[in-house]
């Protein structure tokens, strides 16, 4: 193997092994930051050793063994220090003899719980959202600082800083390395889900940068979601989130036109939807619903996405069901944008007049005052009702609100076209 081939192989091994390695070590040393440093030390040792010795048959065990040795060394050193301070030399050897086998036993346990603890720790509310995202991708996704920086278009030192600070915060706040129980579990789980969905959305509709879809980041999020579903298979919302991500990811290919323009859902070439991901998404949705999660926010959104996925043509879309799902979502997580979506769904299901009624109720909503999609939707409904003068004014207003040149042109075109059909 050439040096660069070995390097790529080590990258791949790291991707597969790092999370379990860090999780196992974190349980041992009770400190996620220290665990990551120990794991990194083992990686450095591998990078030094493997190009010459070749990659061992069981690289995961090699890395764990190396990291464990360092942990044991560290423990011994600390213990020695402790001893010196306390001047209690007698029991030293007996304690060491006891502690080392315990470490072995501890590390051979099932790693599933460790991974779960690691996820909950990385997404702990004591950290900022950015820190949670960076730490999760780093500790569980196996991404390097450079990869995270590229994904979120921030300078690498910023990400490095964020991670260092996050680890310090966790340690100073003495965040226990554990899976929360009872009522706390739900709140903490929703933080984990939020972080994963945030990563997904950054890939699905990037907020900045050259590409507006970054499928690699969607893949990272999907992978984290699937890992989580494997760890807590009885939590409906986890399957709901996985379903939502699989279904949305199934459309990645169809969302962008040949010249780079975004293609709206109803205009997409459904032949380009990824049927494998749709099947997986629908299966995950079924699991979420079977577990009683039908009313959870992610499961509801997945159910919405599923309505589109099941329709072979836009005309086959079950708008009545979509309108009902939006209503449920609107009750669960009320927001003017959800309400506007509901208005559109209602207009598709029950006609433009019914939709317009809901849109008009949003006109006084201050958060939508400069939101061009409100007059845009309203213009569309007015045009369908034959109220062309009003429609034209709405399209013009929408055009004046959008910051996007391409979209402004389109809206002005619609304004010009808003005249009674010539006889």
């Amino acid at each position: 193997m050439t040096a660069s081939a070995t390097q790529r192989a080590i990258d791949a091994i790291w991707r597969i092994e790092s999370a379990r390695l860090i999780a196992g070590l974190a349980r041992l040393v009770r400190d996620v930051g220290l665990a990551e440093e120990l794991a990194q030390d083992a990686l450095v040792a591998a990078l030094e050793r493997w190009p010459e010795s070749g990659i061992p048959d069981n690289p995961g065990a090699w890395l764990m063994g190396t990291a464990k040795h360092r942990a044991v060394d560290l423990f011994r050193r600390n213990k020695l220090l402790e001893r010196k301070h306390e001047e209690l030399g007698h029991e030293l050897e007996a304690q060491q003899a006891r502690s080392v086998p315990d470490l072995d036993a501890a590390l051979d346990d099932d790693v599933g719980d460790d991974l779960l603890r690691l996820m909950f720790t990385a997404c702990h509310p004591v950290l900022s959202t950015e820190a949670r995202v960076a730490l999760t991708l780093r500790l569980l996704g196996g991404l390097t600082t450079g990869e995270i920086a590229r994904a979120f278009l921030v300078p690498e030192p910023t990400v490095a800083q964020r991670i260092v600070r996050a680890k310090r915060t966790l340690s100073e706040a003495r965040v226990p390395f554990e899976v929360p129980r009872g009522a706390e579990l739900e709140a903490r789980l929703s933080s984990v889900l939020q972080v994963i969905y945030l990563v997904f959305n950054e890939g699905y509709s990037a907020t900045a940068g050259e590409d507006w879809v970054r499928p690699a980041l969607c893949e990272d999020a999907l992978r984290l979601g699937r890992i989580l579903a494997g760890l807590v298979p009885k939590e409906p919302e986890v399957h709901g989130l996985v379903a939502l991500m699989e279904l949305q990811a199934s459309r990645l290919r169809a969302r962008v036109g040949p010249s780079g323009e975004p293609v709206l859902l109803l205009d997409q070439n459904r032949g380009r939807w990824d049927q494998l991901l749709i099947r997986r998404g629908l299966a995950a949705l079924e699991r979420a619903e079977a577990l009683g999660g039908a009313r959870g926010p992610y499961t509801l959104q997945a159910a919405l996405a599923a309505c589109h996925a099941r329709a072979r043509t836009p005309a086959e879309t079950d708008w009545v069901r979509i309108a009902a799902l939006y209503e449920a979502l609107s009750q669960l997580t009320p927001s003017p944008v959800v309400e506007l979506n509901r208005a559109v769904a209602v207009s598709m299901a029950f006609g433009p007049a019914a939709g317009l009624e809901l849109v008009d109720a949003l006109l006084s909503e201050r958060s939508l005052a400069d939101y061009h999609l409100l007059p845009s939707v309203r213009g569309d409904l007015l045009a369908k009702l034959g109220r062309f003068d009003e429609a034209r004014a709405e399209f013009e207003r929408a055009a004046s609100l959008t910051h996007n040149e391409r979209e402004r042109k389109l809206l002005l075109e619609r304004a010009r076209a808003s005249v009674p059909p010539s006889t």
Partner: protein
Amino acid sequence: MRFMILIKATKDSETGVLPSTELLSAMGKYNEELVKAGVLLAGEGLHPSAKGARVKFSGGKRTVVDGPFAETKELIAGFWLWQVKSKEEAIEWVKRCPDPMPGTESEIEIRQVFESEDFAPNDPTGELMEKERQLRELSESKGR
């Protein structure tokens, strides 16, 4: 990226020898690992080629040829579809696979699947992205 992992057939798999209980349980564990790592998208084992057929195309003519087929090494006995970051990662996962055909020489082939990165477009001005971000919020129902 996605890879199709092809398990090549052997004399045993072609004569319909079923995997032993040990192998089945080892493979089950391995599959579980793949699922828990978020890597496995799909996978199936295939019956021997004796139960299959081939349709040959030549100058507009279609000829059906029934199995079994002779060139065992070129046949496959099963496949997985994986989502991983690199070919190297696929290789590392395959190396962790239990020997699929114990007692005989066998081979697993790794082939990349065409997919969506190929058409991830450029947006030099960043404008389109902003539009996309806004459109997204409504794209679940109807655009405008």
